């Protein structure tokens, strides 16, 4: 049997100190397992069955004691941490301490002592073997906690919601009985390991009791640095410090050091002054495997990196921070590294980094090992013994660790050989629940916990569970996941008084709504179930002003919570809204209503990246995807009914309509319009009063023309704004009408402020986009398809326009020998006015086989003289035309009419065709 030793690079004084700490804490009265909601709601003993059921899940009882499927569903468990690579996360010394006395190593832990029944000698042996086994799954890489991250980490820890479940750690903070207590974290984790855990706690603790806070790498590193700021590591480099005035790196062999010493990494703070000094660092790096690595050296001023006596990168001379890089092939194992640096004046920076062969670019300090030396007195480095580890592996299965902890070997979890009685048949006075647990796991249960568990077990023994109401199921789930730490529902839970000040905002003007997580009373009628599931799986950040984050718990953990909310909170629906307007008209009205010229929702609500002018409340672009339509309808007319104390006013106080000219002036249609507008989410048109400094072009007495790049009307777009607030864009490339819309005309700021590039969409609403294809064609017969391709190819020439009354343009173009005049005129000055189009044709010859194309659309319905297009708008055609022909054009229906020429007294031929657009 071979015996492999692996030495731990960085144990020492700090560890010795920690052992003393464990010793002393073991003298305190032993804690019982802590479950926050149990602590908060079950200290009176009024609901022993509920309390016991909660503990059955949180103590993971059913991992050993089998239950029926129905009970398993009723008692979802908090699984134990995944131990697959625990050796790379947790220090072996901590593992030992945890095995020796869980409640001392981590007060309040739900991990039981499994080894209490062993003789003291046997017990120590088992603990040693298990420690070696668990430590064999990985290696801890220690780096010091960067001091510059600590402050940010402290801020985050106390702002984003950690302190909803954990004790605040600022000076003067009192421990709270409802907190999950934390062990001395520097005794357990390295900075990197804790940061990794914080970034994705669900990977290690999949049951979601420690939820995922959507931390980015930097934030995880900051919080980890804060929590481990007491971590003291032994020096892993030597330095020699020199003073002098150099223009380039000096020859260090000729210099005499002012000071020599040990330090950490390549730390310039050992210098005694800011300018005119030089430092030589020495250390040993441990390369994990054979391969090519890229070294990056950056400094202000010069520096040199040497590995095994050879220069790898040289950044000579005096300069601001400058990087150079080089590749070097290195064998696995130890290599001598030397870094030389000099500073003439100004800023001083030194960065030594490596990447490659599977490693991300990182500081080389992370691979530094202390140069070989004698151990310090009292230092007990951990040395991995594979033989002990192999025996530990067997114990892991035999003692029942594997019943709760997943630990995969070769992709398969180790099995547990522990056998426990069925939960329904277990004797509540022996085993885990007895005063003396004997060979059974010892949870250090309190007397009340024991009693509650016994009460719950009686229910389990009595048969299958009774059905719970949706409300009770919600309470159970919110209890398990400690949702009540932040949220109140039906007068239960909510932020505890002692923690209230820890919930903060940057929008104090908004009051508690800005800082206290939302009330969940009635949430099942407010939020769409799919949005709730989205939040469970992704967390939420829809209230950027609220510092506390809604973390991820995972749908698989919280189960059917969204459906339960919906079932419990259903609202009595109002009668359905009658559809009097097209969706485009509703959107146009909705946009107007939320904007500065309407009810000014934009004063307090942001709109995507557009800031509100007052407080920066939740973005309007998120409302449609989050909110239930029925709830929205009822909420906006009476917010206080749903959110007591809210500062949200209603735009329709007591059912009054302050803008009676919008739509039909009813509350119902206006609310419907706002909702329809919000349905566009972040693709909606920006409400009036937000965004940039538009140069709004507007027709007052006369029509106004804007020739430019118009989105939807091409590079030769001709926009026309009419005083009646109808607008159109003609595409001169396609010689055809491209768009009609209502309201505001165009914003010229893009073209006039910039270099004139890019396409500008209409500024107004209710945009009707038409297929930009010419309206006339000579066809062989009614079967011949309408010509495609560039109009120029089929005989069209754009000829400009003349201005008629009120400067309204008459577009002029030519098709073969036919001169066309195409004129548009709004028929009223009311909202959403129709537009009449008059097409006049003149020709010397009677052009035969001339057809006029009325429309081509997905859906057409004949309504009297008119066509209803796409169930949305009306088109009426009249004038010198023959019988209407409906024909197929791909999947669409095309309507064409033959043109009937009229001979004039002068011998020329004329025809007039009129189309009325009502949209």
């Amino acid at each position, binding site marked *: 049997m071979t015996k492999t030793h692996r030495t731990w690079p960085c144990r020492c004084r700090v560890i010795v100190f920690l052992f003393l700490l464990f010793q002393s804490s073991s003298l305190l009265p032993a804690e019982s397992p802590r479950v926050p909601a149990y602590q908060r709601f079950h200290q009176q003993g009024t609901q022993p069955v509920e309390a016991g059921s909660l503990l059955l899940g949180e103590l993971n009882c059913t991992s050993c004691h089998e239950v029926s499927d129905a009970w398993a569903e009723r008692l979802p468990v908090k699984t134990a941490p995944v131990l697959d690579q625990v050796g790379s996360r947790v220090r072996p010394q901590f593992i030992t301490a945890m095995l020796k006395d869980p409640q001392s190593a981590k007060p309040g832990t739900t991990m039981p002592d499994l080894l209490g029944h062993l003789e003291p000698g046997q017990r120590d042996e088992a603990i040693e073997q298990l420690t070696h086994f668990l430590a064999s799954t990985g290696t801890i890489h220690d780096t010091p906690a960067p001091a510059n991250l600590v402050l940010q980490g402290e801020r985050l820890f106390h702002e984003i919601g950690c302190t909803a479940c954990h004790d605040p750690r600022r000076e003067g903070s009192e421990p709270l009985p409802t907190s999950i207590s934390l062990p001395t974290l520097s005794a357990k984790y390295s900075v990197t390991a804790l940061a990794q855990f914080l970034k994705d706690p669900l990977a290690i603790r999949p049951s979601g009791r420690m939820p995922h806070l959507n931390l980015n790498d930097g934030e995880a590193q900051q919080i980890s640095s804060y929590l481990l700021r007491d971590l003291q590591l032994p020096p892993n480099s030597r330095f020699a410090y020199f003073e002098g005035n150099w223009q380039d790196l000096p020859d260090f062999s000729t210099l005499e050091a002012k000071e020599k010493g040990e330090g950490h990494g390549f730390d310039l703070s050992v210098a005694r002054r800011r300018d005119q000094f030089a430092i030589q660092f020495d250390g040993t790096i441990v390369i994990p495997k054979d391969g090519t690595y890229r070294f990056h050296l950056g400094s202000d001023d010069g520096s040199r990196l040497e590995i095994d006596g050879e220069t790898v990168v040289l950044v000579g001379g005096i300069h601001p921070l400058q990087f150079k890089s080089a590749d070097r092939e290195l064998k696995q194992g130890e290599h001598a590294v030397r870094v030389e640096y000099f500073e003439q004046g100004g800023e001083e920076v030194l960065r030594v980094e490596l990447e490659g062969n599977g490693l991300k670019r990182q500081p080389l300090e992370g691979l530094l090992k202390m140069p070989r030396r004698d151990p310090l007195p009292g230092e007990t480095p951990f040395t991995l013994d594979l033989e002990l580890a192999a025996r530990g592996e067997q114990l892991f299965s035999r003692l029942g660790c594997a019943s709760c902890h997943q630990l995969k070997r070769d992709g398969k979890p180790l099995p547990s050989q522990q056998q426990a009685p069925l939960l329904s048949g277990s004797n509540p006075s022996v085993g885990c629940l007895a005063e003396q647990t004997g060979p059974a796991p010892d949870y250090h249960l309190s007397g009340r916990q024991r009693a509650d568990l016994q009460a719950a077990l009686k229910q389990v023994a009595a048969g299958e569970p009774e059905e719970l109401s949706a409300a009770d199921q919600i309470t159970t789930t919110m209890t398990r996941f400690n949702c009540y730490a932040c949220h109140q529902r039906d007068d239960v839970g909510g932020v505890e008084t002692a923690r209230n000040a820890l919930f903060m905002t940057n929008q104090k003007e908004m009051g508690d709504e800005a800082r206290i997580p939302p009330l969940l009373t009635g949430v099942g009628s407010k939020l769409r179930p799919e949005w709730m599931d989205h939040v469970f799986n992704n967390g939420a950040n829809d209230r950027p002003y609220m510092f506390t984050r809604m973390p991820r718990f995972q749908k698989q953990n919280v189960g059917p919570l969204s459906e339960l909310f919906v079932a419990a909170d259903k609202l009595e629906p109002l009668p359905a809204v009658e559809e009097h307007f097209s969706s485009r008209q509703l959107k146009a009205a909705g946009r107007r209503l939320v904007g500065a010229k309407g009810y000014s929702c934009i004063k307090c609500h942001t709109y995507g990246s557009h800031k509100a002018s007052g407080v920066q409340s939740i973005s309007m672009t998120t409302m449609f995807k989050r909110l239930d339509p029925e709830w929205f309808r009822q909420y906006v007319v009476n917010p206080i009914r749903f959110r007591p104390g809210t500062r949200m006013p209603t735009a329709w106080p007591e059912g009054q309509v302050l803008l009676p000219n919008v739509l039909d002036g009813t509350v119902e249609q206006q609310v419907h319009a706002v909702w329809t507008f919000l349905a566009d989410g972040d693709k909606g048109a920006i409400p009036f009063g937000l965004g940039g*400094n538009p140069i709004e072009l507007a027709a007052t007495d006369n029509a*106004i*023309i*804007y*020739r*430019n*790049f118009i989105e939807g009307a091409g*590079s*030769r777009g*001709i926009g026309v704004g009419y005083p009646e607030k109808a607008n159109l864009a003609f595409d*001169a490339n396609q010689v055809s009408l491209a768009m009609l819309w209502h309201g505001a005309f165009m914003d*010229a700021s893009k073209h*006039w*402020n*910039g*270099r*004139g*590039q*890019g*396409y500008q969409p209409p500024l107004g609403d209710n945009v009707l986009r038409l297929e930009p294809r010419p309206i006339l064609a000579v066809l062989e017969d009614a079967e011949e398809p309408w010509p495609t391709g560039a109009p120029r190819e089929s005989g069209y*020439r*754009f*000829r*400009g*326009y*003349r*201005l008629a009354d009120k*400067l309204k*343009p008459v577009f*002029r173009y030519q098709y073969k020998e036919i001169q066309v005049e195409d004129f548009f005129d709004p028929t009223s000055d009311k909202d959403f006015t129709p537009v009449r189009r008059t097409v006049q044709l003149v020709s010397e010859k009677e052009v035969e086989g001339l057809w006029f194309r009325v429309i081509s659309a997905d859906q057409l319905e004949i309504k009297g003289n008119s066509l209803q297009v796409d169930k949305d708008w009306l088109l009426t055609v009249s004038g010198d035309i023959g019988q209407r022909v409906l024909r197929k054009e791909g999947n669409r229906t095309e309507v064409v009419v033959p043109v009937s020429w009229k001979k004039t007294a002068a011998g020329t031929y004329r025809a007039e065709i009129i189309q009325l657009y009502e949209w």
Partner: protein
Amino acid sequence: MPVFSRCLLGLLALLLLLVTEDLSAQEKKPPGEEDYYPLLTLPIPQGVVLEASALEMMGNGKLAVASRRGDIYLVENPLSPSAETMKFQLYAGGLHEVLGLSRKGKDLFVTQRCEVTRVADTNQDQLADLFETLSDGWGINGDYHEYAFGSRHDREGNIWVVLCLTGSFNSDSRYRGWCLRITPEGKVIPTCSGIRSPGGIGMNTAGDVFYTDNQGPWNGTCSLKHLRPGSFQGHPSGNRWYEITEAIGERPTDPSSGSRIMTEADRIEQFEPPAVLFPYKKMGQSASGIACDTTEGKFGPFQGQLFVGDQTFSTVMRVALEKVKGHYQGACFPFRSGLDSGSLSVMIEPGGAMFVGARTGDGVHVVDAPSPCSGLIGPVRFRLRFSMFMPSAMVLS
């Protein structure tokens, strides 16, 4: 380099007057440009944003000023010494970046980004009411660089249009990088290739047409180039359009990068070398409009010479040309600096006043939004002390 940035254009007039005055008062200080050619800035009425991108004299003595925002104003009494008698009137609007005006009879022929348009006032109410497309025979796609500069009518009645490339390197739309002639009937005659980024176009007294091209790929510095029909002006990106026209023959060989202009001119038959290269950052940085002195001495002793604006330096340069073996060559001279507002369009009216359509600001291509009032410049007047430049200046021309 784009000739138009979005700074406001002011309108400056360089006005030459013959004055006889007693010089004794100023004997101590040698006279400078401002003593010969004082500046006068037209008083622009409030509310008018003039980005004076093209200039033309109407038959009735009114000055037509086009703006980059697409308006055309008529200025009554533009040479009046007093602001009160000068009158601005909006004549037409809604056009797409006007960079060329040419009057024929009572009509204005307007070159805008998208087309050459005949603009007329058919009912004589002082407001244009007819916008007739003469030609839209080129492509545009929404790129900022795709400008179109139009000349005045040539002797045959054609308008010459120089079309900027798509960006600096590409020709994504039809005839980008070409010069087209538009006949009175609206026919398109492809005339030259090889254009990069024009800043202005104009004619000399012989009727030959020149344009300014700007520093950038294939153009080491800004230059004045002769649009000899059939010629290639040096930037090969637009040469793909030889595929669709035979008007100027075969596609020329592409020039070799890193070579020299005269080497390439010897090698490539169609290559027309620049008539004048403006020393970069010495004479200017973005050459713009071109005017020819046809005043027979009313503007000074420069009959037949060309005057070229520079946007960045806010100057007007003078160019003297001669034709040697069929190709133009010549020299450039500083003429008038201190316009302080970026010179764009340049025109000399028959009475001997030079108008410079200028943008305001610090004379560089800026990306900031313009301040709305910076377009208003107070009047300055040019005065010429005729006797002072007689001996040396005359010899040069």
